[in-house]
């Protein structure tokens, strides 16, 4: 099919599909009139049952914890998949790429101001990320959001031009182990619950509502998710950057 034919055919189908969609959503409850009951039950029960104040975290890590385990596994497998797909073939390792130092050598190094600003932000970003991860059960945020923030901190090192340091951080075995331990921790904490009758059931004291160490397993699951997400995102980024870094390091040398 030519692009024009596609445009026409899609124009007709898309318009019809959109019409059906509009006709259908007219029957939905009007915007702003959520009717429940699922969410309302959870809003009512969560603080009482689980001693945590952020219901969204409770949904993610307790009520519907298996969803999150599935999602963690998706992230984990996609990291593995990205590494598999971007792996360098044999012929590249053997120096065929040395020739391409030419076009890449002219990439300018960041200015001093950028370097100072970027490196100066690393510390606060790590602290901020850790805060978001550990307070996920109390206030908005949690393992995902904090994990992503943590993963961006090493990238600032890259932006600052400290390629070797970045490589040392991102390519470290520590990242891989943290990834596997993060998701493995989630899986393992779930097994703790089996002793009490069901997978992912809370097996720890609930603590006082509003305290940092409260909510039983939710806190631990949150932290392990944070570790898995941070390491996973960093690995993906590194998989995209690896080749470039090698080339730039070589051209600098």
């Amino acid at each position, binding site marked *: 099919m030519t692009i024009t034919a596609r445009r026409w055919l899609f124009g007709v189908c898309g318009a019809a599909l959109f019409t059906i969609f509009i006709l259908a959503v007219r029957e939905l409850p009007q915007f702003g009139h959520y009717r429940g009951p699922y969410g309302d039950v959870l809003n009512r029960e969560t603080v009482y049952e689980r001693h945590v104040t952020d219901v969204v975290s409770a949904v993610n890590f307790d009520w519907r914890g298996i969803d999150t385990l599935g999602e963690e596994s998706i992230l984990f497998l996609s990291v593995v998949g990205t590494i598999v797909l971007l792996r360098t073939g044999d012929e590249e390792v053997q120096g065929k790429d040395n020739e391409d130092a030419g076009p890449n050598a002219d990439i300018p190094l960041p200015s001093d101001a950028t370097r100072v600003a970027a490196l100066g932000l690393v510390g606060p970003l790590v602290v901020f990320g850790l805060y978001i991860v550990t307070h996920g059960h109390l206030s908005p945020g949690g393992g995902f959001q904090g994990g992503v923030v943590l993963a961006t901190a090493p990238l600032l090192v890259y932006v600052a031009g400290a390629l070797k340091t970045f490589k040392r951080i991102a390519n470290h075995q520590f990242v891989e182990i943290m990834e596997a331990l993060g998701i493995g921790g989630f899986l393992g904490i779930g097994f703790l619950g089996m002793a009490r009758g069901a997978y992912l059931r809370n097996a720890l004291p609930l603590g006082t509502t509003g305290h940092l160490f409260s909510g039983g397993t939710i806190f631990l699951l949150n932290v392990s998710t944070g570790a898995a997400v941070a390491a996973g995102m960093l690995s993906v980024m590194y998989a995209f950057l690896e080749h*470039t870094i090698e080339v730039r390091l070589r051209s600098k040398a």
Partner: protein
Amino acid sequence: MPFIQVTILIFVGMTGTAVALTRNPVHQVIGLSFYGIILGLFFFILQAPDVALSQITIGAVVLPLMFMLALGKIRRQAQRKSSTDHPGNARGVQ
């Protein structure tokens, strides 16, 4: 519906359309980042701070970054080809 919700919704629709219709991937990445922020704002207005936070970190920072890295990588591959085998044959990125 309050005015601000309507405005930002229409804005969401318009930016989304613009991202999908932009042909140049580099411009598109910038649009996507902007779109991520607008979506984050919309989620914030819908009383979803958790989602807004992750939308802004992932949708407005990580995703555009991944696209930039991929585009850069493709561009370098194209340069390499053109500089080593067939000069002027880089048709990777328009």
